[in-house]
């Protein structure tokens, strides 16, 4: 197993306090979060330390309920941590909010039901007080394949279409911090693949410190500079795995052995060391392999 901090091309660290130069993008130090749940309380995050370089792309992997969305919401300034510090691009969550530099896509699309798709996508611009360029909006709608639905209300779209609209909305402000919570979860594979490529293109053209929560291991490898794997609740960063693959990454890359090695490594971390890495060394979302561990 590689030790992430010793790599020369390191872009991330699980000890940002000791490596401030690796925490110029996202910088989470000693983050914990406890929710109260009626009489009881739930510790969602147990001491999260994480740093990434500015304009790097990090993905968060981890079992359901481990606190991925919570980390993302804390970074977005939507939740205050119980303890710990958060800095992004050298700014606090509130500062970066106020600078209108966040793009965010929630796990559920969170579109405003009374606005048309077009107007939903334009919302961040309105909030930022930027005059919306109609061309930009229609390009974004095109990008996510919703042409013809500009005037539709969210209730009139399918689940996947809503999620795509929310991705378009995320890109509207051309953010310096992008937070994506399972943005492609509800998409079919073809659309998902296309969105992945588009996301990479956009991110390369206009770099932004990006954090993506996902369940797709190969998606994470394909897009990220670094992948952080979390352990189950109370969540903490289990390992930080830098993805040292050349950019721009093309679909072909996904057949390269290095790519598969990363996928396998991550599956192993996620599903345990004795987890069956695919013997053929082939692409795997961990889905099939992990099943071996289960007793019916």
């Amino acid at each position, binding site marked *: 197993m590689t030790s992430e901090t010793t790599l020369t091309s390191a872009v991330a660290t699980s000890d940002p306090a000791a490596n401030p130069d690796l925490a110029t993008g996202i910088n989470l130090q000693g983050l914990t979060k406890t929710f109260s749940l009626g009489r009881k309380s739930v510790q969602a995050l147990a001491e999260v330390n994480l740093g990434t370089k500015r304009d790097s792309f990090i993905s968060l992997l981890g079992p359901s309920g481990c606190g991925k969305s919570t980390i993302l919401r804390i970074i*977005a*300034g939507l939740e205050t941590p119980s303890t710990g510090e958060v800095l992004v691009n050298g700014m606090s969550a509130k500062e970066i*909010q*106020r*600078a209108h*530099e*966040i793009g965010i896509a*929630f796990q559920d699309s969170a579109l*405003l039901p009374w606005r048309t798709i077009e107007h939903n996508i334009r919302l961040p611009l309105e*909030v930022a007080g930027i005059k919306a360029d109609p061309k930009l909006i229609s390009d974004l709608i095109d990008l996510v394949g919703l042409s013809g639905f500009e005037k539709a209300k969210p209730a009139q779209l399918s689940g996947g279409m809503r999620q795509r609209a929310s991705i378009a909305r995320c890109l509207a402000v051309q953010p310096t911090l992008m937070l994506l919570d399972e943005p492609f979860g509800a998409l079919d594979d073809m659309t998902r693949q296309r969105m992945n490529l588009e996301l990479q293109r956009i991110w390369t053209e206009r770099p932004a410190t990006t954090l993506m929560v996902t369940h797709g291991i190969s998606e994470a490898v394909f897009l990220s500079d670094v992948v952080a794997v979390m352990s189950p609740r109370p969540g903490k960063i289990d390992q930080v795995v830098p993805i040292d693959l050349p950019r721009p990454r093309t679909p072909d890359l996904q057949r390269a052995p290095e790519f598969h090695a990363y996928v396998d490594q991550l599956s192993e971390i996620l599903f345990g060391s004795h987890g069956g890495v695919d013997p053929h060394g082939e692409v795997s979302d961990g889905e099939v392999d992990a099943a071996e561990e289960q007793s019916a």
Partner: protein
Amino acid sequence: MTVSATSPGGLTERRLSWRSLGSLPPWVSGLIGTVLIIAAWWLVSAIFFGPEGAVPSPINVVQELFSDFGSQIYWKAVAATGGAALIGYLWGTLIGLLMAVIVLLLPWTEGVVTQLAVVCSCIPLTAIGPIVTLMTPAGSRGTSIFLAGISVIFTTVVGAILGFRAASQTQLDVISAYGGGRFKQLTKVRLIAALPAILAALKIGAPAAFLGAVLGEYFLSGVDSGVGIQLLAAQADNASVRLWALAITCGAIAGLAYLVIGLLGRLVAPWASGDADAQGVL
């Protein structure tokens, strides 16, 4: 649809009849209701009272109304009272909304503001009516306007505060994540999510405002024209037919206001589940 064809006959038929009732256009059911009510009124009038008794016959009342429609005096009175009601309504709504917005922007003021609004709704009008009359110039409709306004404030405040809370946390999160503050949350989400509840409050307010304006005329000094004045006169004259015609006039005006605000609501807040969309839901 053939789906129901396979179901047992009786059940289907009953459901179909419910359906057909449910699919009646509103104005048809409105008409049916009106006819039913008038029939009941007629029966009560015919059996227990004479055509000019305390509950007069609908025919007489309708005749009276029709003769009223040709009379300038009638329309002058309606316009005078309606005008005062409208001014009071607008003021009351404005003040109510302002109060709710204050609560929204400064949540700690909620208690104080709602208490002030409660006071508006529970001050005995009969006690303060004369005082207001004394504080406004003779001949002005100040008391009518005041009572109309004060009748609206409380419901507007409660409705608007309720409405401002209707936005879900996710919807608000979207705005804050994009750097919007409380104000943007207000303009982009809260106000809009609040519309259904606010409109409901405004709908309640309209009849209340008219009632307030009519009641105000019972206190006014130096005012000769108005629905309230005519009611007072009809009462002193024991003119039950006129009384009922005026009462129906009051109802019709309030109903019109209610309808117009309802339509307005459907226009500006078509997504609101309180309206057409929800027909399939409940």
